[in-house]
């Protein structure tokens, strides 16, 4: 005797769909939170090196010849001077507008960029540059000089600290 299938079997199983509502709720919370904490500005860091003490190089006369020429960038309020070792003539970039507060208005920074690019082309081995800011130069000018130097392949910045002597005033 054949029995008919049980009523339970006869029931059509409804396709259970994945409940996405909790995931949706989670997304709705997380995405605005992430969007709000994402930093709008990015902080950069620029490294400099302190000037190494110069040693006695009498014994290394052969090595000195192979060394690339030393390049120094001197920053003044009214001019920027680029000094290259063993080159008599310095490159001087005079201020376009000495009274301007903003450095990009005071100096033609495109010109400085070009000069540094040319220097790098002439001294491919040189990756170091010395920067000596005068006392009254603002921090922004110094940073731009460092930035342009790094952009043009002078990755090691040697911050030249002028020696200072303090005297007691009676």
């Amino acid at each position, binding site marked *: 005797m054949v029995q008919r299938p049980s009523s339970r079997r006869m029931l059509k199983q409804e396709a259970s*769909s994945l409940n*996405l509502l909790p*995931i*949706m709720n989670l*997304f709705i919370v*997380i*995405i605005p939170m*992430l*969007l709000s*904490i*994402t*930093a709008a*500005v*990015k*902080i*950069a*860091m*620029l*490294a*400099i*090196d*302190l000037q190494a003490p110069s040693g006695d190089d009498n014994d290394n006369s052969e090595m000195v010849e192979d060394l690339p020429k030393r390049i120094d960038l001197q*920053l003044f309020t009214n001019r920027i001077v680029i000094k290259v070792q063993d080159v008599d003539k310095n490159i001087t970039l005079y201020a376009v507008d000495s009274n301007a507060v903003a450095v*990009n*208005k005071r100096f033609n*920074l*495109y010109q400085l*960029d070009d000069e540094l690019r040319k220097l790098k082309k002439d001294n491919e081995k040189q990756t170091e540059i010395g920067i000596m*800011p*005068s*006392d*009254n*130069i*603002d*921090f*922004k*000018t*110094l*940073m*731009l000089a*460092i*930035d342009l130097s*790094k*952009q043009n392949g002078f990755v090691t910045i040697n*911050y030249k*600290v*002028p020696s*200072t002597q*303090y005297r*007691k005033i009676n």
Partner: protein
Amino acid sequence: MSIESNSIRKDDSKRSYKMNRKQPKVKPLEITSLIDILTILLVFLIKNVSMDSTKIVPQGMNLPTTISREKLIEGGEITVLKIYPDQILFGSSNFYNVGSPEDLINDEATRKNFLTLLKNEAKNITDLNDKSIPCILIQADNQIKCRYITELIRISGKASFANIYFSSLYETDKNKILGN
């Protein structure tokens, strides 16, 4: 009258029943594609989110903008120097007021105290971990004169902080920085 109305009502109910049966079933909202987009967006945001930068930006200071950026030396332990026109703050988690930039130039005692603080900080860093390298991150306002920066660097060098970093805002557009 009542019989008639009853019959009409019955007819109406039948009609409405038939109409209901003919209506198509309401389809469920297809949100799978939306979920896909949200998942991609979520992964993208999680990858790109950086919470460190928001911590570093000092309040009330206009940092200069640069095109270049560098990573901290491996094993570097940062001590922050915040230079405001009227005060210099120094520290890593707790900040100490060292004095004003003018004091640093004119007052010998301020310079000595600052040097001692820096030496202690460098010693603490190396004592905690031999492999740690003491680094200084200088955050200064755009308008701060370089005479103060130079003096701070000189003192930092004396206190064994050989790695010095300057903090700036990162900008990818070169013309924005160089342009008039």
